[in-house]
């Protein structure tokens, strides 16, 4: 099905609020399916968004997850007020994580988040300033 217009929206995510983990991505998944995006694309966007949502929850004080669905592409922008990433290249390596032990015990912090986002996006950009925050932009072409 062709998308005939642009849909936009955002979700606010509060850091450390694990009881609400996955709510934003699950809601976005429903929106994408309702708009008529094909299953395989929905799967990729949803996984990438869930990882972005978890990163905000694990590391940042707060963040915002924005989505823009246009006839050409789906754009997800995750912007947080967090500690920032010192070495982005290192953070992008599968298995590397700075998550604390209690987060790892929950099964998060396996160093798969950023690589999973990159893997599922056609275009992946990350920009971070230590002490200010991180912005991840992902584009999935339709």
């Amino acid at each position: 099905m062709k998308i005939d217009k642009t849909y936009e929206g955002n979700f606010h995510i509060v850091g450390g609020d694990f009881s609400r983990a996955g709510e934003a991505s699950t809601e976005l998944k429903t929106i994408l399916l309702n708009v008529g995006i094909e299953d395989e694309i929905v799967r990729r966007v949803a996984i990438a968004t869930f990882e972005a949502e978890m990163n905000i929850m694990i590391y940042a004080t707060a963040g915002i997850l924005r989505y823009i669905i246009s006839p050409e592409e789906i754009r997800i922008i995750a912007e947080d007020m967090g500690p920032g990433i010192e070495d982005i290249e290192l953070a992008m390596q599968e298995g590397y994580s700075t998550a604390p032990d209690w987060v790892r015990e929950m099964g998060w912090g396996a160093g798969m988040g950023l690589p999973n986002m990159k893997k599922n996006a056609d275009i992946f950009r990350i920009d971070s300033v230590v002490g200010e925050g991180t912005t991840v932009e992902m584009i999935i072409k339709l």
Partner: protein
Amino acid sequence: MKLKEIAEILSLRPLTPVEGLEREVSGAYVGDLLSDVMANAGEGNLWITLQTHVNIVAVAVFKNLSAIVIVNGRMPDSDTMDKAVSEDIPILLTGKSAFETAGKLYQILNAQNLQG
């Protein structure tokens, strides 16, 4: 294959309402790393894990998993149970290990050509 039949054969103890046991299981996935399950579990899969905290329900809802089996006699947190009931995700327990649970389940599902 119905969750109910699997629960009976493997002697799994359901903690959530019995109506959930009518669900169809498409296959199974074993994992304790949530990103791995998110990336690789299939729709309708039964998820075997030792994780007990509330985020397992979020992952199960997100991936449309058929149920969660918690191994090694571990008990889910109370907020996990609340969320599982409200989100309609069956949670079952076993005292057996993930290896033993997955091994038996593999045999059962293999006989029906439903592995993953």
